[in-house]
């Protein structure tokens, strides 16, 4: 609530200042867009560029298409505000889900900046501008690394940044605190998850052709809204411990109470002459089964030939810990089927839920980026994904039988990205 109040205050302050001092205030408008056509060739699993968006297969002109608008408002010498809306194919279409930035910033000196309102995370190299296709090499940020990251890509809160030139390099340190609610859909139903007390520290150092970023983050998983999960946890809680001892621990692992997610990430970019090399690795630690502990990363190499850049990447994301094994309930001989059948079904449902959420996949892509005009880039990319059995946590899988199979998916994409 505190952070919701901050974002509201930031917007009201900006609006009041704009009306009161309109003569001295300067607003500048800009935007970005990507128009993309893509084809995902596997009918059993549905692709989505990130966790917040609709997943589907076959042809799509909306999957990676994006339209963004931004206002930069200069309020006074040391005060400014930025508001940014991004329209994309979100599964949840609440207006608030499209507001990416809405902050008020104060710069007390050239080294310090304090922002309050709706902010973008700088946990990863691309997480401040994942929607701006013009600004990066691929048609979309690497799926294994950025898909789940989208759930906490924006947050409501405050951050403080310190910047300093050091020898020939430039260091930026940032500390951020806030809350966010990831608004997703699962099986057509609203699935909202609160991430409370989100704290992030990042350090970025730029030296000539090198950019290095290290970040750590921690958040408490707060309330959620998902009727199916509610019902599932209630059923697990109703099972007497002697009948199925594991029910209680499964309930605790699916429930959001007392769950904390920790994250550490390291990113490196080398951009010199014709070569553009970028790599990131991230490790999460989470006992919450809905977003269990993972390791993910990618390496991308691009080579420029005048206005065309050829590139290729390999990416991986997989579970760090052993997958929870669901043991069947044990019954005394003669236990009536009215008791055993529902519990056996609940155990099977628990196993299906555990298996469904595990992430284990890797991919390789090749592509080309062509600078057509000063403000227009055309890209084409082919991704080949290999999803391991019980590893499709980042994909839409409607038939439970497909969870246990290995899947290979090719995604072909052509996109045009521009800034204006």
């Amino acid at each position: 609530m505190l952070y919701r109040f901050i974002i509201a205050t930031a917007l009201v302050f900006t609006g009041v200042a704009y009306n009161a001092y309109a003569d001295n205030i300067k607003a500048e408008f800009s935007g970005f867009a990507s128009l993309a056509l893509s084809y995902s060739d596997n009918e059993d699993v549905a692709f989505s560029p990130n966790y917040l968006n609709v997943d589907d297969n076959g042809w799509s002109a909306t999957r990676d298409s994006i339209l963004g608008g931004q206002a930069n408002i200069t309020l006074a010498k040391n005060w400014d505000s930025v508001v940014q809306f991004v329209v994309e194919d979100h599964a949840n279409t609440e207006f608030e889900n499209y507001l990416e930035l809405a902050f008020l910033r104060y710069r007390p000196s050239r080294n310090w900046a304090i922002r309050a309102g709706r902010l973008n995370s700088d946990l990863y190299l691309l997480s401040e501008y994942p929607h701006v296709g013009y600004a990066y090499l691929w048609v979309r940020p690497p799926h294994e690394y950025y898909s789940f990251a989208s759930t906490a890509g924006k947050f409501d809160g405050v951050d403080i940044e310190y910047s300093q030139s050091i020898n020939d390099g430039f260091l930026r340190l940032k500390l951020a605190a806030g809350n966010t609610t990831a608004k997703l859909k699962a099986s057509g139903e609203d699935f909202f998850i609160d991430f409370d007390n989100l704290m992030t520290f990042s350090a970025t150092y730029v030296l000539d052709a090198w950019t290095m970023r290290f970040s750590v983050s921690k958040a408490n998983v707060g309330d959620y809204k998902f009727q199916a999960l509610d019902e599932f946890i209630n059923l697990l809680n109703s099972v007497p411990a002697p009948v199925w001892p594991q029910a209680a621990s499964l309930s605790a692992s699916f429930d959001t109470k007392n769950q904390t997610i920790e994250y550490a990430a390291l990113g490196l970019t080398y951009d010199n002459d014709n070569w553009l090399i970028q790599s990131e690795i991230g490790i999460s630690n989470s006992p919450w089964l809905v977003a269990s502990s993972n390791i993910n990363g990618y390496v991308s190499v691009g080579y420029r030939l005048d206005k065309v850049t050829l590139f290729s990447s390999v990416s991986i994301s997989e579970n760090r810990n052993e997958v929870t094994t669901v043991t069947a309930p044990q019954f005394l001989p003669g236990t009536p089927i009215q008791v055993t059948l529902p519990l056996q079904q609940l155990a099977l449902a628990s196993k299906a839920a555990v298996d469904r959420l595990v992430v284990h996949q890797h991919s390789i892509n090749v592509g080309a980026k062509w600078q057509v005009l000063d403000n227009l880039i055309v890209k084409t990319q082919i991704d080949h994904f290999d999803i391991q059995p019980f590893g499709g946590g980042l994909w839409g899988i409607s038939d439970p039988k497909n969870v246990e199979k290995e899947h290979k998916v090719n995604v072909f994409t052509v996109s045009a990205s521009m800034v204006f």
Partner: protein
Amino acid sequence: MKNPLLLMIGLALFNLDAVSTEFVVVVNKDNAINSLSKREVIDIYMGRYLTFPDGEMAQPLDLPSESLLKNDFYLQLVNKNEQKINAYWARLLFSGRAKPPISAISIEDALKKLDSSPYSIGYIPVNQLTDAVKVVYRFNEN
């Protein structure tokens, strides 16, 4: 946004310049800053700092897009061509960090803007230097 005729004339004129133009970085004559190091010019032109070292606001100016002069300036400053600089500024602008330099439509326009604003900082070929501005950095110096 841009006058196509002016831009074409400008581009034709700029194309006459050699690739290795000798630039000077200039500010308004009333600016208290008398000199900048190359790193301080980089800090301002790459959006790292929004002020001069004395804390006064800095408004960098660019020469026209897709001109050899702009490309050459950034190659000399940070070894990045205009294509890379455009992608860099898209990242900074849409991450909410900073706004890109204002684009002048010609060297004369840049000199006019420098003359009228105490906060402006620009770059021009040394052979087009006038008394209306103050040189704070020369590329042939270390």
